[in-house]
């Protein structure tokens, strides 16, 4: 995982909507966000809006105490419109994969009644 003292890969721990835990290794050199990571890992995340904080199909809860950059105005507005929002709600598409989120624990939110 470490190369010349720098990380080239991190791991996050994601719980899907069925409660199953996935330890996902993510390379740092391709500029991903957590919505894209979910899609690449074949998890049930549509990423409908393509990462513009406009659909909330990647709504997730941050369950570890990592300090993440504050949500943008766009993300806050979107989170105000979705179901099952908690204080630790975030949109995966707005969380960039960096060294700082190594070990992050997240859980996918339910999307609705269907």
């Amino acid at each position, binding site marked *: 995982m470490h190369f010349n003292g720098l990380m080239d890969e991190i791991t996050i721990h994601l719980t899907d909507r069925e409660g199953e835990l996935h330890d996902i290794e993510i390379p740092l050199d391709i500029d991903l966000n957590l919505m894209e990571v979910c899609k690449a890992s074949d998890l049930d995340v*549509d990423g*409908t*809006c*393509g990462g*513009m904080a*406009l*659909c*909330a*199909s990647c709504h997730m809860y941050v369950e570890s105490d990592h300090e993440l950059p504050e949500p943008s*105005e766009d993300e*806050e*507005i979107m989170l*105000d*419109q*979705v*179901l*099952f*929002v908690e204080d630790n709600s975030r949109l995966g598409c707005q969380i960039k994969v960096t060294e700082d989120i190594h070990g992050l624990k997240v859980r996918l939110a*339910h*999307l*609705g*009644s*269907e």
Partner: protein
Amino acid sequence: MSQNSVDTDLLIVGAGPVGLFTVFEAGLLKMRCHLIDALPIPGGQCAEIYPKKPIYDIPGYPSILAGDLIDNLMKQIEPFKPTFTLGERAQALQKLDDGSFMVTSSRGTIIKAKAIAIAAGLGCFEPRKPALENLEKYEDKGVDYIIRDPEVYRNKKVVIAGGGDSALDWTIFLADVAEEVTLVHRRSSFRGAIDSAEKVAVLAGQGRVNLLTDTEAKELNGNGVLKEVILNHKTEGQIKLPADNFIPLFGLSPKLGPIADWELNISKNAIEVDTTDYSTNIPGIYAIGDINTYPGKLKLILCGFHEGTLAVQSAFKYMYPDKKLSFKYTTVQGVNAF
């Protein structure tokens, strides 16, 4: 705008950018198009979700707002006089003996077409439904997800749930119509349009709306029709509110919808196509834009434009197997309006 029966050459399911541009390419081949879309306006996601967002990868436009792109496309296809069925979902598909199709909409409109191009993006945008017990039991019996006619709520007790612009705007509007309006929001503040949030706060101060923040709807009760909404406040616990109507406004989310039952080959919510002409497994039906999938697929508007262009060439041959098709540049031929 809805008609009971329509006869067209090419039915385009979905009036987003790709569906709209396909009208242009079909028009050059003298095919008439009818478009059907579940949304009440043309433009799909560009109009409904991000009209004010810039798009940077439309060839020839260093930057264009999604809403402006739709306006331009509407102008570009005007010469070919497309017709629209809006606010209705394409529901049932029937293949007729002569190789043409009959599609029935969610509101009973019948559209006959020689071929179909499905440009349905991620599917129909449908209201997000909160996970409440009994919710479906009271649909159309007090529970509404879309406000079609505000007069329905005159002198009624209405509970609106949500924190977005539509929840705020309808709260303001219905304050003058309904007997009682309660706005329920899961969070403590509204971060949407500041003007609207301030107006709601003023109305709440005047006692003209009940504003319940940090509160969620938990349960619906009634007797054939809705009578009561049970709410839960973060610190104060249960609140029972008499209600004639409960209107959850939590935005829209896309669903593949009835197309899933059209016997098309579907993989992960997308329709499999042959990239020669973007045809599906059903001859005469094409799938273009975000709704289709093939090796190397990219969900880009510009790719959808290309897909629609090739699909109508093939659709022409499907409709008129004996006619010759000669490809002409618009620069040479111009655009010959209908």
